[in-house]
Every structure is written in structure tokens, then in C-alpha cells.
């Protein structure tokens, strides 16, 4: 056996425990017993007893090692006093240090809070780890695309055939619906249909009603608290009726707490799924309950310990059995429920989410700002270190040990960091409302939050060590003899370290500036990009049930009004993300493709100013146009047709349509998505109204629409939007966060300026005598300015060489998240260089010019 000695850890412990005066005897006794036992009972037993003896020795309080009385409290009091005096003596440097660290800490705290809330999404469900969403990979004509939709018959059949599946929840977000109670009409924005076990599987808090019962009926509706309050006021809504779509009366069976913000499932009311089942429910929505239409979300709860991989291996056979004609194209898979919020950026139809990209960007920015602040501290305190040399010398002479000096310096860092943390916390608190507005979150800075306190408690020592340890080691390393004997100033030391740090700072700042430029350009681009149609001044509304029945009168009235006469009636509009249909070029089933359908009228293409590339538009005069289709450029490319006009196309299970024209590609929904194949056809059942208004008469048009609406519809209130606002909303979440990022980037630049200014001030101070001598010998102002600036310019140059590729790489990475993006170009880099150069020169020159102009006699007099 290798180790024949008593356990090391026990010996260490003993040494720490037992009073120094008797330690030798005690360990000796234990050693003797150890040897004895080793001979009699073997090594293992002996070691075990040694451990036991040691631990039992802990109870010998009277024999405890007393901490050596060094009067440490007085010492630390002295440290803090000196630190405090030092801070007062160098007010400028201390302020720069504290301010930059407070900004750094505040940014870090804000971003930590943000990330914490992002990561907490969907974690509040007790079954979260067993929950999955049924997604699929659609290997269509435009490549393999993931989406989150499945068909209504899929889930319940899986429940029957997969032993691993414990429960299946179907869910469909229907959008808005108008509810009527008494004489009150209310448009409720987010109505969802949910399986009867929805509230049992997911942990949304039910205030009234029984989770197992409330969604059982065929006309049950569960309202959230605020919806209930808006509809019923103070009246008890339970067992009351509200009239909803198709005039169906829904009975309120339960009240939910409002859905927490950190849930990706968001709804204002839930209607029982049974309402949609044909033959059972009054709404009878066939497409939500068949095998083929892929339009709903299916959530699965697996049994505890069930193997997801096992489910995955059985899915192909399942598809083959139930949807044989699509089995090849679809690959279904389960996505863990907790991953949905952050890991669905590449999944179609999944709710708009920020994704992990932002988390990484935010986290890196927080780290970068903190680093810049720490670098400032290191730079300033190492360059100031010589000023402390005498103090260190004296402390050493009177017997201070190296470790004590390090502690002294660290206690100064601690003081600075504590102050910065307090200011940073106040800043965080103050900035919270603005940050919330930018990011669209409702974060709160809550010190009672244990996790946050833990993070702060962790942050303080990390920052203290990161910023303080190097200067502390340097200062403590001064040799007493040298610093006290020589009258000449001590070499500052740490020069190269400072150069490296300031270069890094410049690199980080450079990347931040490039990032800021790129972000604002991309944001601009998304708001102003050429979408392939004109989105401006389009007033939009949708027909209510009542108007739909009598739409001709309503449309005619609109057409008769001068402000609303230019209008188009359609089923789809460019802001919608409509579902994909199977289409068959030339009607050949084998050439199946997935395309988006736009059911429109003759005015649609004209109103949106889309461009016809070939053929003609629909024409109401030509009766055969109800069997005609217009395709877009992408559809043309993917169909393989040379000349599409006159070719036929099969759409879904319907008969063949004849292609009469080709329209240029236009973006619908969000610019995050690629353009997909589109087939347009005419419709008899339009419900979306698009009215082109002129910029000058927007208000009149709105008024006209309101009046005409009220004439024809008494139950439902009008709700209208402008298309450009709707589209901007797609990017709101993103552009807000981008703005927050930009603000952080600017903060980082400002903090770097603090550090730069401090460092320059110090350099100038130290070079004053040199400058004086040079001036006496005849140097001009310019050459003096250059003398001091050249060091910073060198650093800047190196930083540019590193910053440009780093910035390019990072921005490229970020831009890959957009299907349509601005090109990078050289401008951001030129701009960043210009900004950095001017900031540096401005900061540095402010001080150097003064140095260059001073009277050399002032500094040389003392020699």
C-alpha cells in the first residue's frame, strides 16, 4: 500500500484544531495508537480509528487552538481608514473607478435579471420535465423545415398506441373573438381551444372551478381574472353565459389567474376542445380534428421515466400506419416543453421568441462592460501604485508581511467595489422601468429574492479579486529598501500589463461600436426594407360574423365613400402567417409541394402594389377566373416550369387550377423567414378588408370606416389597424431588445472613456518634467502632444487590427439569424474606427494640450 501514514486530511484538521502548545503531544499520541492498531488490526482500521479520534477531538473545546491575537480588527480599521483617505486624496481617480464599476455592476445586474427571467420560462409546471410538444420536420420542396404543428387526430391516437404516453393535450390559439354578455360586447384578444385535461397537465392556477371538470363540456369556457372582470364586473361569472363566435353561447365554468408572463402559452380565455369536435360540439371545426390538416399544437405528457428515444423510434411506423401518404415527408419528434421558449427560433409557427441568441449577446455584453470597468480599475490603480510605494515601504519596515499588504490593498478594492455595488444597485433600481419598457418584460429588482442576493454576494468577491489582486501583488512586491532609500521615483511597473489591458479595452469597445452600428442598420432595414409590396397607409379590419353574412352591403357602402373606396377583400393579408397547403404542379401527385395560399380578389395585387412579372391579374369579368391561379417567383422556380402561363396546378384535394400570371416575390409575415412559394386564387368568402388610404386623409378614412361599420354592425365593436404598425410589431420585441443592447454598448464606450481619461491624466502627470525639459530645449507644442499621444495611438492601432476581425466574426454570427439582412460592408468598421479615434484623441488631447502649453518653469523650478 502506498500510503502508510495516517490520513492527511485528519492531520491537517488536527493541526488546525488543537492548541499549538500541546499539538505535538496529541498528534504523537494519535500516531502511536495508529502504529499500534496498524500492527494489530491492519492499515485500514488504523486509518479509520485515526479519523474517528481526530473528529472526537473536536469536542475538546478547552484544548482548542486559539486564534493568535494580532488585533486584526484594529488593523482592518486602519486599512479602511487609509483606503478612505486615499480615495479622498485622489478624488478624480476614485470617482472614475467607482462610477465605472457601478455602471458595470448595474449593467451586469440588469442583464442577470433579464436572463433569469428568460430562463425561468415555462418552468412553473410541476410536470415540466415530462412534457413535450409534438413537432415535425417537413422535408418539403424548400428543404427540411421544422414546425410545431400537428393534426388533431394524431395526439389521441398516440395516447392509445404508445404505452409511454400518459396524457395528450391538444391546444389551438384561435386569435381574437368578440364576446357578448347582456348588452356588453368585448373583443378578447387571445382565445384558445384546449383539451379537457389542459388544466390538470399544466399548472395554471384555477381560482374557481375544478381543474378536472371545467373544460369537460361542449360549450365550457374558462376565463382569466381580468377577462372575467372586463366582461362581468363584480358579478359572479360562474354558470353565466357569454355569446361568442357563430352565435354559440358558452358557459363560464371556471376562473383562472391571469397567465404568468413567463409562460409561452398565453391566453385570455380557454374554450373546451369538445366544442370543435364535429358531431359533438356546436362549432364543429373539421380541420382541427382530422388526420391531414396540420394546424394545431399537440402536447404530450410522458409517464415518469419513459424513454423519449423509444417514442421517437416508434413514430415512423406510426406515421406509416395512419398517414401513409405523408409518412415520407414528415418526421415527427418531441421537443422538451422547457426548451420551447428558448430553442424554437428555427421552428415555424412557434410563438415569437427571443431565443438563446439574445441571451448570449446580453451575457457577453454584461461581461464585457464588467471587464472594461475592472480593467479601468487595474489600470488606474497600478499606475498610481508608485504613489503608495513609501507607505508600503514603511509598513514593511515595521513588520508587515507580504500577505498582509496584499490584504490591505484588497480591502481597498473591497471598499471601492462595495460602494460601486451600492451605487450600482441604486442605478439598477432606477433603470428598471426603462429597461422593462425597452425589453417588454416586467422584471423587478427585488433584494428579497434569494437568488439575486446570491448572485450579488458572488459578484462582489469576484470583482474584488479580479480588479484588486494584480495591483495588490504589485504593490506588496515593492522592496522596502529600494522604495525608502532612493529619492528618485520608483518605476511604476506593470507597464506591459496596462498596455495589454487598454488594448483589450479598445478591442471590446471597437466590437461594441461596430455592433451598435450593425444593429441599428439591421433594425432600420427591417422597418424600411423593400417587401415586394407597399405596406404604407393600408387600413385593415376583419368582418364580424354579422357583417360577413351581409358583406355586400357593407363593402358597397365603403366603396361609395371617397376615403375608403380603394379596397380589397381577401382571406389572407401579408401580415398573416397562413398555413401551408399541398399543391401539385400539373396535377401530378408525385410533384407535391408545400405552398402558402392567398385567397384574394382582383384589387389585391394592385392595392398592395405588387409587381406582375408575367401573365395577367384576376379579372372579375372573366367567369373562369374562379379556377385561375397566380403564382409567385419562388413557386415558379421550384415548380420547374419554363413557361407557367396556361399550366395547371392542383391545390389540396380540389380540382385543377390554371396558372394565369406570375407575381414578383413579396415578404409576408416577418423578415426572419425566407420567401415561400405562394399560390393566389380568388375567393367567394373573404373576411379581411384592406383599404388603401392617402397619407393626408387617414383620419377621415378611419372616421368613415367607423361610421359605416356602426351602420351595419351593432353587436361587435370595430377594431382596425394599419398594416405598417402590425408589421412593426413583429420586430418590436426584437428592436426593443436591440435598443437596450445599444444603450449597454454606449455605456461600455463611456466607461472606457473614464479609464482612458484617468490613464492619460496619469501619464501626463508623470511626463510633466520630461515635457518641461523638452520645451526648454526647444520642442514645439505639436511634438509634445505627439509624444504623449503616440503611445495611445499605437495601442489604438493594435486594437484596430484585433477588433476588426473580431467584430466582423461576431456580427456575421448575429446576422445569420435573419433571412433578410443588411450586408456588412466596411462602413461600420470605418465608423467605429473614426469614433474610437476621435474619442481617444479628444480624451487624450484634452490633457496633453494643457501639458504642452504649460510653462516649463513651473515644473522644473523644484529641481
Amino acid at each position, binding site marked *: 500500500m502506498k500510503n502508510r501514514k495516517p490520513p492527511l486530511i485528519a492531520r491537517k484538521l488536527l493541526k488546525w484544531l488543537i492548541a499549538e502548545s*500541546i499539538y*505535538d*503531544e*496529541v*498528534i*504523537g*499520541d*494519535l*500516531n*502511536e*495508537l495508529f*502504529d*499500534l492498531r496498524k500492527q494489530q488490526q491492519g492499515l485500514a482500521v488504523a486509518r479509520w480509528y485515526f479519523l*474517528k*479520534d481526530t473528529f*472526537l*477531538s473536536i*469536542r*475538546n473545546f*478547552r*484544548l482548542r487552538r486559539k486564534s493568535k491575537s494580532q488585533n486584526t480588527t484594529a488593523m482592518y480599521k486602519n486599512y479602511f481608514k487609509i483606503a478612505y483617505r486615499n480615495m479622498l486624496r485622489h478624488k478624480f481617480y476614485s470617482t472614475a473607478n467607482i462610477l465605472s464599476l457601478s455602471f458595470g455592476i448595474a449593467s451586469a445586474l440588469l442583464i442577470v435579471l433579464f436572463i433569469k427571467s428568460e430562463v425561468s420560462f415555462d418552468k412553473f409546471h410541476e410536470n415540466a420535465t415530462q412534457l413535450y410538444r409534438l413537432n415535425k420536420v417537413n422535408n418539403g420542396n424548400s428543404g427540411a423545415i421544422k414546425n410545431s404543428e400537428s393534426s388533431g387526430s394524431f395526439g389521441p391516437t398516440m395516447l392509445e398506441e404508445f404505452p409511454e404516453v400518459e396524457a395528450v393535450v391538444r391546444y389551438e390559439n384561435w386569435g381574437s373573438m368578440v364576446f357578448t354578455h347582456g348588452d356588453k360586447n368585448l373583443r378578447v384578444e387571445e382565445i384558445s381551444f384546449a383539451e379537457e385535461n389542459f388544466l390538470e397537465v399544466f399548472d395554471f392556477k384555477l381560482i374557481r372551478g375544478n381543474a378536472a371538470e371545467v373544460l369537460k363540456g361542449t360549450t365550457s369556457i374558462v376565463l382569466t381574472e381580468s377577462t372575467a372582470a372586463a366582461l362581468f364586473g363584480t358579478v359572479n361569472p360562474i354558470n353565466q353565459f357569454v355569446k361568442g363566435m357563430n352565435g354559440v353561447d358558452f358557459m363560464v365554468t371556471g376562473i383562472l389567474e391571469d397567465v404568468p408572463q413567463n409562460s409561452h402559452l398565453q391566453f385570455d380565455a380557454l374554450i373546451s376542445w369538445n366544442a370543435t369536435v364535429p358531431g359533438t360540439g356546436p362549432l364543429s371545426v373539421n380541420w382541427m380534428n382530422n388526420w391531414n390538416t396540420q394546424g394545431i399544437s399537440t402536447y404530450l405528457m410522458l409517464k415518469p421515466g419513459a424513454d423519449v428515444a423509444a417514442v421517437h423510434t416508434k413514430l415512423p411506423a406510426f406515421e406509416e400506419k395512419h398517414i401513409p401518404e405523408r409518412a415520407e415527408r414528415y418526421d415527427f419528434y418531441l421537443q422538451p416543453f422547457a426548451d420551447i421558449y428558448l430553442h424554437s427560433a428555427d421552428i415555424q409557427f412557434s410563438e415569437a421568441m427571443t431565443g438563446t441568441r439574445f441571451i448570449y449577446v446580453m451575457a457577453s455584453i454584461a461581461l464585457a462592460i464588467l471587464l472594461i470597468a475592472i480593467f479601468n480599475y487595474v489600470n488606474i490603480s497600478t499606475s498610481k501604485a508608485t504613489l503608495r510605494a513609501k507607505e508600503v515601504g514603511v509598513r514593511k519596515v515595521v513588520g508587515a508581511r507580504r500577505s498582509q499588504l496584499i490584504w490591505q490593498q484588497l480591502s481597498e478594492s473591497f471598499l471601492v467595489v462595495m460602494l460601486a455595488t451600492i451605487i450600482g444597485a441604486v442605478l439598477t433600481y432606477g433603470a428598471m422601468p426603462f429597461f422593462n419598457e425597452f425589453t417588454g418584460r416586467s422584471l423587478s429588482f427585488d433584494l428579497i429574492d434569494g437568488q439575486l442576493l446570491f448572485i450579488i454576494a458572488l459578484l462582489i468577491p469576484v470583482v474584488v479579486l479580479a480588479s484588486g489582486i494584480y495591483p495588490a501583488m504589485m504593490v506588496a512586491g515593492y522592496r522596502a529598501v529600494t522604495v525608502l532609500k532612493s529619492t528618485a521615483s520608483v518605476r511604476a511597473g506593470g507597464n506591459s500589463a496596462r498596455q495589454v489591458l487598454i488594448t483589450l479595452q479598445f478591442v471590446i469597445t471597437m466590437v461594441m461600436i461596430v455592433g451598435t452600428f450593425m444593429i441599428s442598420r439591421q433594425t432600420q432595414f427591417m422597418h424600411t426594407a423593400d417587401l415586394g409590396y407597399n405596406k404604407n397607409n393600408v387600413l385593415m379590419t376583419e368582418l364580424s360574423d354579422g357583417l360577413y353574412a351581409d358583406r355586400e352591403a357593407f363593402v358597397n357602402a365603403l366603396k361609395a365613400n371617397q376615403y375608403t373606396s380603394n379596397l380589397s377583400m381577401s382571406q389572407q393579408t401579408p401580415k398573416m402567417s397562413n398555413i401551408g397547403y399541398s399543391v401539385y404542379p400539373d396535377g401530378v401527385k408525385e410533384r407535391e409541394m408545400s405552398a402558402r395560399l392567398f385567397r384574394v380578389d382582383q384589387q389585391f395585387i394592385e392595392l398592395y402594389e405588387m409587381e406582375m412579372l408575367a401573365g395577367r391579374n384576376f379579372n372579375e369579368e372573366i367567369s373562369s377566373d374562379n379556377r385561375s391561379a397566380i403564382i409567385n417567383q419562388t413557386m415558379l422556380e421550384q415548380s420547374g416550369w419554363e413557361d407557367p402561363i396556361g399550366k395547371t396546378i392542383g391545390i389540396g384535394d380540389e380540382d385543377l387550377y390554371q396558372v394565369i400570371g406570375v407575381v414578383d416575390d413579396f415578404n409576408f409575415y416577418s423578415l426572419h423567414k425566407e420567401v415561400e412559394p405562394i399560390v393566389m386564387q380568388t375567393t367567394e368568402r373573404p373576411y379581411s378588408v384592406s383599404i388603401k388610404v392617402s397619407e393626408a386623409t387617414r383620419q377621415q378614412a378611419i372616421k368613415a370606416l367607423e361610421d359605416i361599420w356602426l351602420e351595419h354592425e351593432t353587436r361587435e365593436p370595430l377594431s382596425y389597424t394599419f398594416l405598417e404598425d402590425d408589421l412593426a410589431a413583429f420586430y418590436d420585441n426584437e428592436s426593443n431588445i436591440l435598443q437596450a443592447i445599444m444603450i449597454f454598448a454606449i455605456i461600455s464606450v463611456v466607461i472606457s472613456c473614464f479609464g482612458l481619461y484617468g490613464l492619460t491624466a496619469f501619464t501626463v502627470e508623470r511626463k510633466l518634467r520630461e515635457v518641461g525639459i523638452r520645451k526648454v530645449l526647444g520642442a514645439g507644442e505639436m511634438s509634445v502632444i505627439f509624444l504623449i499621444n503616440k503611445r495611445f495611438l499605437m495601442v489604438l492601432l493594435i486594437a484596430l487590427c484585433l477588433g476588426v476581425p473580431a467584430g466582423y466574426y461576431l456580427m456575421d454570427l448575429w446576422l445569420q439569424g435573419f433571412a433578410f439582412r443588411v450586408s456588412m460592408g466596411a462602413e461600420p468598421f470605418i465608423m467605429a474606427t473614426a469614433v474610437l479615434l476621435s474619442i481617444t484623441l479628444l480624451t487624450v488631447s484634452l490633457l496633453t494640450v494643457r501639458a504642452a502649453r504649460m510653462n516649463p518653469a513651473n515644473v522644473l523650478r523644484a529641481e
Partner: protein
Amino acid sequence: MKGNHLGEFEELVLLVVASLQDNAYAVTVKLEMEERADRKANISAIHSTLYRLEEKGLLESEVGGITNTRGGKRKRYFKVTNEGFEMLRDAEQLRRTFWNMIPQLSGLK
């Protein structure tokens, strides 16, 4: 004075130290106690008692030479002081007095 009376374990340790004469240090005390009194005691308990008795003035000690067997550490040899012996004698005396007061047993003796 409260400190003047001996605990049972203290008395035992004191007796063992006295009986070991020149060879009384923690380990031998422990072994002797195991052998003669059939009493298991952890070394830490012996330590605590020995040092306590020394503080009470019932034991005195000196440090012995370095030996190889103990990892080069010294031993502390304990010796019963006069006060210690007195204490032991007092305790013995006290006991005997009470024994004598128990009629049938004293008769048997």
C-alpha cells in the same frame, strides 16, 4: 469549592496515572484502562481529562524526549501531584467512612 470534587472518570484516570508511575502518558493511560478496568475510552476523552486534571493541579507533567515511534513527536508524561494524592486519599477515605456505616456489610468484613 466546586472544582474540588472528582468525577468518576477523573478519579479513574488519576488512579491509572498513579499506578503507571513513570510511564504515564495519554496512550499508556488509555491502554491500561482498557486492560485493567475493561473500560473503552477514546483518546480524545483521555486528553481532555488529563489536561483538565493538570489545570486543577492534581497532575503535573513534563515533556519527554523524541522517539521514533510517534512520528518524531514528544510525549508528555504525567505525574500525580501531592494534591492529587490527597484528593485520591480523601475520596478513598470518604468511601470507607460510608462503607463502615453500612451495618451488614461491615459485619461481613
